[in-house]
């Protein structure tokens, strides 16, 4: 069965009035036994603060070894100004603090991962491949050194990939096959000639993301007025997704499938009809 563990370091939440600037949450003392609800800490003041807080809140899933990732739609729901999010994310990407990946969900989903987490994941993959007695593991080193360092976009063309990898040594087609097998590169339906960077071992969580979204939306649509209090919604568990409810809520609010509004008894989440 799925073990959904609420991370014990459920971050220090700050008090929040909806749509107001938020102080950095770390300044408040963290109460470990109290689970801070999402409606109290929906927005943050800054993209990097939001990224760090959400990375800390990423649910720990024991079966899959995936680095904590944050969806771009979650960032949109956490910071008030979307243009500010885009620009700050661009700055962070150029400074090589984070990396952005395009997920193959059919919609415009982008995942943001801190570069250190990503490199750790790549190392883990390399170790696993070495353990399986594969030769030619130099390709991973070249990949890390030349490609990841210089190519900051989520996609790369075939010729460019070959030319960047050949900075390390002679490149053959089998090497690229190795990279695809390791899960570091994929192809998507958009363009047959382009490779897209991917997060290794993302498969399970990717499925969980899609199913969780569907489940949460259908849960709300079944209600008579298609709405529910956020506090109540947070307590529910999703059957098909090990990612916790807060993750999906932030994602759907950011991608405008759900909208929130303030009432006298708290924040209400409603399916958006536009």
């Amino acid at each position, binding site marked *: 069965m799925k073990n959904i563990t609420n991370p014990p370091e459920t971050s220090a939440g700050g008090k929040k009035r909806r749509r107001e600037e938020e102080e950095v949450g770390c300044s408040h003392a963290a109460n470990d036994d109290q689970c801070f609800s999402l409606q109290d800490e929906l927005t943050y003041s800054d993209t990097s603060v939001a990224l760090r807080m959400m990375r800390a809140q990423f649910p720990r899933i024991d079966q899959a070894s995936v680095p904590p990732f944050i969806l771009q739609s979650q960032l949109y729901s956490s910071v008030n100004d979307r243009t500010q999010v885009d620009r700050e994310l661009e700055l962070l990407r150029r400074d090589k603090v984070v990396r952005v990946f395009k997920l193959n969900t059919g919609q415009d989903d982008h995942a943001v991962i801190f570069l250190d987490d990503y490199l750790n994941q790549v190392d883990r993959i390399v170790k696993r491949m070495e353990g399986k007695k594969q030769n030619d593991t130099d390709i991973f080193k070249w990949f890390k050194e030349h490609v990841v360092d210089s190519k900051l976009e989520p996609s790369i*063309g075939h010729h460019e990939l070959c030319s960047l990898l050949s900075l390390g040594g002679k490149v053959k087609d089998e090497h690229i096959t190795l990279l695809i097998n390791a899960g570091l590169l994929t192809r998507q339906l958009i363009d047959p000639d382009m490779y897209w960077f991917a997060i290794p071992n993302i498969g399970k969580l990717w499925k969980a993301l899609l199913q969780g979204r569907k489940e949460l939306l259908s849960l709300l649509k079944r209600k008579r007025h298609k709405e529910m209090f956020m506090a109540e919604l947070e307590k529910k568990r999703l059957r098909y997704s090990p990612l916790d409810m807060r993750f999906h809520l932030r994602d759907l609010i950011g991608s405008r499938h759900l909208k929130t509004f303030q009432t006298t008894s708290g924040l209400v989440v409603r399916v958006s009809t536009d």
Partner: protein
Amino acid sequence: MWQAIQSRETGRTRPNSFSNQLKSRRISSLQLSNRKDFVSPHRGSVNSLQVDLTEGRYLLSGASDGSAAVFDTQRATDSEASGLIAKHKCVFSVDKGHEHGHKFAVSSAVWYPIDTGLFVTGSFDHLIKVWDTNTAQAVVDFKMPGKVYRTAMSSLAMSHTLIAAGTEDVQVRLCDIASGAFSHTLSGHRDGVMSVEWSTSSEWVLYTGGCDGAIRFWDIRRAGCFRVLDQSVTQLGVRPPILKHTAVNNKVSAEKSSSGGKNRLKTPQSKHTGSQNMKGSSSVKASVEKSRQKRLHPGMLSTLDRATAHYGAVTGLKATNDGMYLLSAGSDSRIKLWDTQSGCNTLLNFETGRLQTNKAIQLATSDDPALVFVPCMKTVNAFGMWSGRTTLMFRGHYESVNTCCFNSTDQELYTSGADRQILVWSPGGSMEDDMVQDEEVAEDKDNWSD
């Protein structure tokens, strides 16, 4: 209001700023007009709207039932409710019953930019027809290789009268009215071209957006496109900062022709060969690529550039009136603002929900409170152009909205959609009623009761 007029009289406010203030107040109070109505003769969804460029008076609409109609926006044909609601019937319309009418849907109807004597319609029956307005006859026909998605004529053109046509064929064709033949064929897109737009700063520059997600800039005086917009080439402000711009373009990329400022055709070729030498790769692939490039005409080198501006098809393009920025709407439900000089994505995020994915949409912009009017499914949203936030939402259509057209002389917004209606959104406010009275509406002053 009266104080503003007085301060203009005494010279405290300049006349320009007075009229700008008045215009922006009117625009921010736009709502569904309770004084004006267009009686739409169309039996299908209305795909295209354009107000004429010379007077700002005549509205041309094209619909899916193959009909095109012209309305007079200033003079009503008759009125209802004792003169309070002005009904505007169409001045004339050409439809399937007309001997020269289109057989299938009219996807695009635009005025001849010099005067209202001619208008051009493009239709799914593969024809572009040029009509004479006064006699309502088709003067010239152009046969296209595929369904016509969009036609455009340059409003700045002094020396050419070319109609740019985007069809389901990968090539964009320019048709010349004066000679009746095709003057240019622009190749470069990899899929049909859904939106074409002439530049508002140069009569020779054409922007096209294709179903492959690419936006290309063409200078019709030379071969090939000179820029392909890439959504990953970004700048962090509405104008590129001088120093950062060069730092961004330090990327070693073999085939990106969109790094700013390099318009010469020779440079892409030297960049290719230069980068080949730098990498020192002697693999078979590189030499094949080199020979492939050598075989191509320098104007065709841009076909190798596969950069995309959107993750889906580009469904709408609109250049701002000052010619500095280009707005593009895509079927990935994003609207992006591009700087036309540097070709960079300005990373402005417009809070759109879903946009129509299968049909082209028409965006509208207004200058003074810089707003973008976007049809988002059944509503029309107005976003601030420099903030990306929603300022106004117009709900009134029963089905999805296809086009928005902003009439800046009257500050009115015309929208049309799949519900076959053309709706007018005019500035609300009773102060205007005092100032502007329709003279032809005779008020019966004896018609009152307690």
